[in-house]
């Protein structure tokens, strides 16, 4: 097994780091202490020099993002930690918080100091009842020990951190939708520019970082930018927490240097494909990243290499399918997610995801038509980059990658009028039955009495 390089998961075997005392014993809050000895601009310069890129999917350089925050607007500045982890297959942030919540708080405090912010929010996914409680407890400890509050670690710097819980909406992981939600609105994305660094929360300059990104920050301050920049490939430095699940022997989170070949993650860490079966398909970074196949076993897992291979690093969430799994069924399940989670703001997304879902459903059920494949291609082309946010781009990934690598399997479903894996469908030699009616909307309305107009205008 290759030598493990673990930074943010280094203490995962030590249950004591969940508490303030345990975290400090393990060297915690030394990064913040060092940051407070520097000027805010020097902290930004250090993070910039480290080459740290956002771990939430987009890979934007973190220090650069911080440097965009203007200090002359007369408005307060804010830091928001994005803990709305909802990309299918992703569970790294949850474990980081459950095991070592102070690591996140330290990262938030350093980011806030760097942009001269005195109020930070943690947007915690609603369904994360327990991880949110772990954070709430850690926040109380941090205040108690003077890490947060009027005098951060005895300095003149003041910082408050507020935990804000969401209420079940994937879209709120998108940064502008997250801000809408945090402001008490429907979680719908906003036009950019202006970018949040200029006009974010409450129309004030705001830095939004993913949990994992913020967890790296204390280590960079403690060990120096050069130390971090030396790990992994030059343009994607550092390590990444890969979440691997599906048909593998040992699903879990594995922190590995960026650029580690997929084969190493799958075979050495996750114990290979479940039951020794053959690998069929995998997503490198959640269902929003195009599926790859067994021919991509040696692709290095980093931003550039995965892009060259026709996919993306995304959140580093690897979902593995084996030779017995039906790709049409998998793609159907993935696009259903986007149809369900589309916020409805942009027509290509709201309508496109629904129609694509219907087409995959009928192909899997044995009612596919030969013209469905060009129709899927056409729909994908009319969705990609046609919305305010990347949700619909994510929906295109399972469409295009299933057509690209598994076209034959789609054609077989249509030709045989059944799923070759499950055997379901009318099959050949039978009279075609009418296609089943689509299922009722997955989120029906409240179903209550009509509200009188006088009430609405109240």
């Amino acid at each position, binding site marked *: 097994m290759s030598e493990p390089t673990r930074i943010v998961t280094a203490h995962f075997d030590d249950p004591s780091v969940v508490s303030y005392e345990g975290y400090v014993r393990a060297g915690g809050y030394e990064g913040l202490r060092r940051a407070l000895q520097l000027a805010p601009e020097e902290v930004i310069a250090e993070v910039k020099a480290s080459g740290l890129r956002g771990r939430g999917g987009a890979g934007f350089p973190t220090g650069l993002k911080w440097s965009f925050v203007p200090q002359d607007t007369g408005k307060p500045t804010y830091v928001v930690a994005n803990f709305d982890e909802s990309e299918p297959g992703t569970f790294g942030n949850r474990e980081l918080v459950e095991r070592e919540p102070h690591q996140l708080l330290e990262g938030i405090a350093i980011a806030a100091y760097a942009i001269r912010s005195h109020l930070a929010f943690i947007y915690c996914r609603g369904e994360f009842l327990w991880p949110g409680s772990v954070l709430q407890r850690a926040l109380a400890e941090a205040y108690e020990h003077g890490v947060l509050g009027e005098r951060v670690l005895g300095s003149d710097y003041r910082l408050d951190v507020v935990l*804000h819980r969401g209420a079940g909406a994937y879209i709120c992981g998108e940064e502008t939708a997250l801000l809408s939600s945090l402001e008490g609105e429907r979680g719908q994305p906003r036009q950019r520019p202006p970018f949040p660094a200029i006009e974010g929360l*409450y129309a004030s300059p705001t830095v939004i970082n993913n949990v994992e990104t913020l967890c790296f920050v204390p280590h960079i301050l403690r060990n120096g930018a050069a130390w971090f920049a030396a790990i992994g490939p030059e343009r994607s430095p550092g390590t990444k927490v890969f979440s691997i699940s599906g048909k593998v022997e040992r699903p879990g989170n594995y922190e590995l240097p960026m650029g580690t070949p997929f084969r190493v993650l799958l075979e050495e860490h996750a114990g290979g494909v479940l039951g020794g079966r053959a690998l069929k398909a995998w997503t490198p970074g959640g269902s929003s990243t195009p599926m790859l196949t067994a021919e991509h076993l040696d692709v290095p897992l980093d931003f550039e290499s995965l892009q060259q291979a026709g996919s993306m690093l995304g959140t580093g969430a690897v979902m593995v399918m084996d030779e017995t799994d039906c790709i049409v069924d998998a793609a159907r399940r993935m696009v259903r997610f986007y149809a369900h989670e589309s916020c409805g703001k942009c027509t290509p997304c709201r309508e496109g995801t629904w129609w694509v879902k219907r087409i995959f459903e009928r192909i899997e059920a044995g009612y596919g038509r030969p013209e469905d494949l060009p129709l899927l291609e056409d729909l994908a082309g009319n969705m990609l980059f046609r919305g305010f946010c990347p949700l619909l781009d994510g929906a295109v990934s399972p469409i295009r990658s299933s057509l690209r690598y598994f076209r034959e399997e789609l054609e077989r479903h249509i030709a045989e009028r059944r799923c070759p894996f499950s055997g379901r469908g009318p099959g050949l030699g039978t009279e075609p039955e009418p296609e089943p009616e689509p299922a009722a909307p997955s989120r029906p309305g409240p179903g209550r009495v009509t509200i009188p107009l006088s009430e609405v205008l109240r």
Partner: protein
Amino acid sequence: MGVLTPELRAEAETIIARYPAGRERSAILPLLYLVQSVEGWVSREGLREVAELLGLRTAEVEAVASFYTMIRLRPTGRHVVNVCTNLSCALRGGREVYAAAREAAGLGPGQERSEDGLFTVHEEECLGACDGAPVVQIDFVNHDRVSPERVRELLDELRRGEVPQPARGAAPRDFRHACRVLAGVEELA
């Protein structure tokens, strides 16, 4: 007759005070959770009281409430059982677990709440715990590697008034208790 008692109104004020002055609207989700912890869902009267606390119109609060799946605008079971059937869980049998949960709760087609008001069962999207697939959340805490047999046992335990031990951490007593935690006015034990 109001939803929020004077004690709960005092808690509502502490929720609103978390946000900067003039930004009270940010408290809308925790306030809806607070109402939900009393009613077990959010009624029209509940929406009206949240609106009144924030100086908004009832329709504005409803517009927000209807966006989020965890804010329930219909009567909801004492326990909410969420079964993930997204890809990683589906690959490990999540759909069979969902079918078993519905059957164990005695739900007919299209029905989401059991006749006795004990369970609301949902087919859920990825719950961020795929290492434990298939995952079931009961009142928003996780149970990992749940088989169809296990989900039947879990529902039986709830019927007997027990609180099943989750995969990690502590569990709320029921959905209303979970909503108090979500509102940030109570902690999990």
